[in-house]
């Protein structure tokens, strides 16, 4: 998804010179949000992505517009086409005087299962071109329950640094003091509308005290949601076990290697004693050419980190939904009693 982002806003160019202030908030235009929701919901079980356009103003990233990427089935063929499509789209938008400044991308997700290596790779891709970019994640399944499941994410700086060096050993992580929580940073989203739109909306607002969202929120059936969550959670557990096995295997290997090294060393020492006795020069106790001294590469911990993130995400969701469900059930009970 190489986005050349050929045109930079003047302001941005100027900003790049200075020390960029930390990104504090993502300000989203109502229009962009609606477009995202529409796109994601229409294709619901399938996962879709799209481009975010907007402006980077100081510590605020404004997302003013967006456009969807066409659904790609066969990556190979349509790769180039996709890039062309993006360029074309941006050109068109520019012609109608819309912000055509890429600030990130959005994607839909299923029950918050987005913490993958691919996401990180995409992020790194974007990051190469745009200093400051975000990923907006929208979860249609969650939104069905009457909440706006919208999230803005970015990778933490320390993580990015580590990722570039591609060194996820335990030691490095400890050095950087990086835990699994520190991979992603969530940025608060602020929805802004122009006063005109606000006024229009107030005008359009029905007199009924409850909106559709409120009704959705009162839905009692949470079972499928919970089940799905549990299933996903279990998958994660399985993956986790696998990762763990990798580590176990690794440790076993290391232990074996150490015993081998010990044996070798002892042998060498005995040899040296004999050599000394014979008045010869002792041979060195290190032999880098010997394969048993080769360091065994530690398996990467990235996967484990992501899985942990994922698991915590699921747990949070389950907790949240369960809490809400209890509330609803008590509410219903009270209503019945009345």
């Amino acid at each position, binding site marked *: 998804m190489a986005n050349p982002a050929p045109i930079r806003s003047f302001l941005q160019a100027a900003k790049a010179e200075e020390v960029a202030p930390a990104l504090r908030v993502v300000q989203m235009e109502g229009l962009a949000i609606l477009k995202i929701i529409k796109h994601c919901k229409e294709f619901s079980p399938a996962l879709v992505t799209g481009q975010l356009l907007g402006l980077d103003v100081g510590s605020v990233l404004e997302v003013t517009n967006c456009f969807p990427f066409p659904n790609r089935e066969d990556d190979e063929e349509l790769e180039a086409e996709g890039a062309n499509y993006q360029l074309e789209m941006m050109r068109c938008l520019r012609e109608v005087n819309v912000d055509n400044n890429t600030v990130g991308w959005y994607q839909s997700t299923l029950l918050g299962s987005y913490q993958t290596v691919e996401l990180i790779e995409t992020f790194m891709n974007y990051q190469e071109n745009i200093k400051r970019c975000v990923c907006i994640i929208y979860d249609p399944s969650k939104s069905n329950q009457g909440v706006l499941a919208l999230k803005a994410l970015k990778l933490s700086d320390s993580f990015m640094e580590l990722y570039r060096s591609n060194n996820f050993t335990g030691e490095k992580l400890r050095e950087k003091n990086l835990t699994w929580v520190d991979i992603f940073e969530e940025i608060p989203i602020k929805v802004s509308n122009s006063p005109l739109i606000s006024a229009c909306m107030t005008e359009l607002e029905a007199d009924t005290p409850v909106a559709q969202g409120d009704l959705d929120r009162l839905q009692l059936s949470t*079972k499928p949601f919970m089940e799905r969550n549990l299933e996903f959670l*279990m998958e994660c557990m399985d993956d986790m076990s696998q990762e763990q096995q990798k580590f*176990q295997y690794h440790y076993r290997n290391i232990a074996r290697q150490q015993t081998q090294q010990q044996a070798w060393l002892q042998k060498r020492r005995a040899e040296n004693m004999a050599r000394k006795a014979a008045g010869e020069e002792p041979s060195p106790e290190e032999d880098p050419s010997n394969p048993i001294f080769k360091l065994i590469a530690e398996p990467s911990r990235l996967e484990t980190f992501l899985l942990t993130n994922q698991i915590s995400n699921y747990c949070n969701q389950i907790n949240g939904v369960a809490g809400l469900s209890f509330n609803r059930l008590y509410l219903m009970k009270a209503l019945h009693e009345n």
Partner: protein
Amino acid sequence: MASKFWTQSDSGSEEERQSSYDSDPENEEDTPAEPTNTAVGNRYLQQNASDSDDSEEQKRVIRSAKDKRFEEMSATIDQIKNAIKINDWVSLQDSFDKINKQLDKVMRVTESERVPNLYIKALVILEDFLTQALANKDAKKKMSSSNAKALNSMKQKLKKNNKQYEYLISKYREKPESEEVSSEEEDDSDEETVSEPRDDESKVGSDSGSDTDNNIHNRDVHDPDMIKKKDKFMDKEFKKDPRDITWDTVNKKLKEVVAARGRKGTGRVELVEQLSFLTRVAKTPAQKLEILFTVVSAQFDINPGLSGHMPINVWKKCVDNMLAILDILNQYPNIVVNDMVEPDENETQKGADYNGTIRVWGNLIAYLERIDAEFFKSLQCIDPHTKEFVERLRDEPLFLVLAQNVQDYLEKTGNMKAAAKVALKRVELVYYKPQEVYDAMRKLADLSEERDDVESEAEESKWSDEQRAPPSFVVVPEVVPRKPTFPESSRVFMDTLVSLIYKYGDERTKARAMLCDIYHHALLDEFSTSRDLLLMSHLQDNIQIMDISTQILYNRAMAQLGLSAFRNGLFTEGHSCLSELYSAGRVRELIAQGVSQSRYHEKTPEQERLERRRQMPYHMHINLELLEAVHLTCAMLLEVPNMAANTVDSKRRVISKTFRRFFEISERQILMGPPENVRDHVMAATRALSQGDYQKAFDLITSLQVWKLLKNKDAVFQMLKDKIKEEALRTYLFSYATSYSSLALDQLSKMFGLSESTTHSIVNKMMISEELHASWDQPTRCIVFHDVGLSRLQALAFQLTDKLSILAESNERAVETKFGSGLGGGGLDGLPLRRRDAGDYAAAVGSGGGGNRWQDSQSYNQGRQGGSTTGRYGGGGRSFGPGQTSGGGGGYSRDRTGQTRGTSSYGGRHSYQSGSSKMDSSARMVSLSRGIR
């Protein structure tokens, strides 16, 4: 001995020179009628005197033919002479071939091994001419090419040919017409006459050795080198006056022979011959004993290499020698055999009348064990489908006699520890024999004795052949019995021996005896006895640290235990005994009945050889097909209702992994042919059973051919049928309970052909163990089902907890491997705490199961919750076998597996056990035995 014939020049007497191995029927018939001859002038054969009439007759008949042959031969020799004159090597070569052919004919006609002097003469002429021709270089150069070629080939041929007759040729050269040889023999003969009768006496009883000797002779005869050497040796001894032979000479000779042993160029067989000759001339019993020990050990040496076995005839001789040793030992109780101290040089000089103890170096037990090992090896090597194998098996009583005698002797001398060892050897020969085989062996022993009586007469004559050697100076009557005595039943036999071993044996001997005992009990269908023995002896606790052959014995005992449980209708126990054997798919290897091929692991030749050496001989095999059939049938009976009960999450509680795997494979098959092997049959039966078609399942199982190997087959089939019906009912209820709201009892009992009370009790059991959510409606005799299925969410939650516990456990272990060595076992406070919790919990559940005595007769679950929680812990423990653990964690998790296994079996599979504590330990028994190899 036989070689003496060679020196005889008189060709006329050849017919009489028939040794017993010659296939002249007439002679064979004659010999038994022949009484043992008294001093006859001719020392070669006793039967000669009376035989002579027959042989005269024979001679007359064939004389013309013989003469003809001789004439032909002399004609050829003339040809040779002519050819020599004209230096014609080509025709010489032809003549040489011709004379060789004629030699065969002559030999056949004269019916002797003796080569006619005429032939030797020809050979000498040829040889002389050859050397002459070779020496004459000029003449050689002048020869035509074909002639030179013929010369060269002649050189080769003659060299090869003459080697055979080297001795005769040299003799011929010494005295061209060797008439005087016979006179020399006459000299010796008086010496012979004195000793002959005594010699016979001493050898009459020692049966079966005779043909052995003959074999050896047969071989010897064709080996001129050996004959020569032996001859020299014998001659030297013969020339002496028997009175001249003193202890010293014998002792010196013995030293000499022993020193030659193992040296290059010393024939092993020949060594044995020399030594056994020495035994005859030994002066004192102690010396005889000493020499006999040397003979036995020399006999062990005859076959080098570890893989091959000792020749059978040598083995038999060896046994005879051992018996002779025992004779001496019993006759002279003052002789003590010991291998601890090197006895005094001249200890053996003390004669029979010496009163003090005489120490002789030797180790009876070691020899006995070696003989046993050789017997075992020979059975391993011989193809079990040949007659040879059966013949060999018949020698078993022979060994038993020896072992019995050795044991008696050792008991008499108070060496009980060694006696226990010998007793173990006897036990190991008998433990695998069911009563019928044991009876057959007893009968065989009796029979062979009778046959020996008859034959001994006949054999005497054969014996006499080699008895031409001087008889022994020390004559020891046969003190020890040569016939085994067996108690009536094999059980009694085992009991007496085993109790002796338990009393005096060392650890290994006891363990092995115990295993043999268990095996034997199991063989006799005494399952509970053998199981109790196994559990009480705690053998399963430390079987891993024993030697491999004991482990094999243990595996065999387990297999037999499983079969026994099956015969007694205890299918659960049967399965738990056998499942361990089948879990790795290496049954053959585990019970040493063949080598299993591993796809991933190539064995080194060394390993393979070792393994081959461990193999059980064919007659000790446990039928593998039967074993497999029993194992799979047991697994089917347990697994089918289990699979029906856990349709949602079939992986959670697997009783038999092997069975599951087989079933999955057979399920995946697209085309289902008629069942062929055991596995196919059981799988087809499984399918039928899971559909509730118990009749078909039963028919399929019983159509297997292997069942005919089963004792009391019909009773077992009856039990099997009942059990299949029961399990079919359970399966049906598991699978279709949800489809019913109520079900009438009589309907159910009709459906499965079970009596109402049985049906009632089965349903009751299921209800109480909460496998079936239902209750009785007594007035209408109906089962009313309650709908209390788990929701999907709940099921998922259970699965999740399973996974969590797995994860937690492996986490613990990961931490332990990382820090375990540094911090020690209890260094991490948090972890042991958790462990303890889990252990306590499991123990609590376990004791709950055991404590409720009133439930024991039917043994119930701890309820749905309890059952599943324990099951979960069990699951956690099971998936990480002890094999995976390393370092400090190992001990703990192994322990834990045992525990959780015990508890999880309370959860479900125990439903039909009477004593739950029993089963707990037997589950443990199985889980602990997993470490074997």
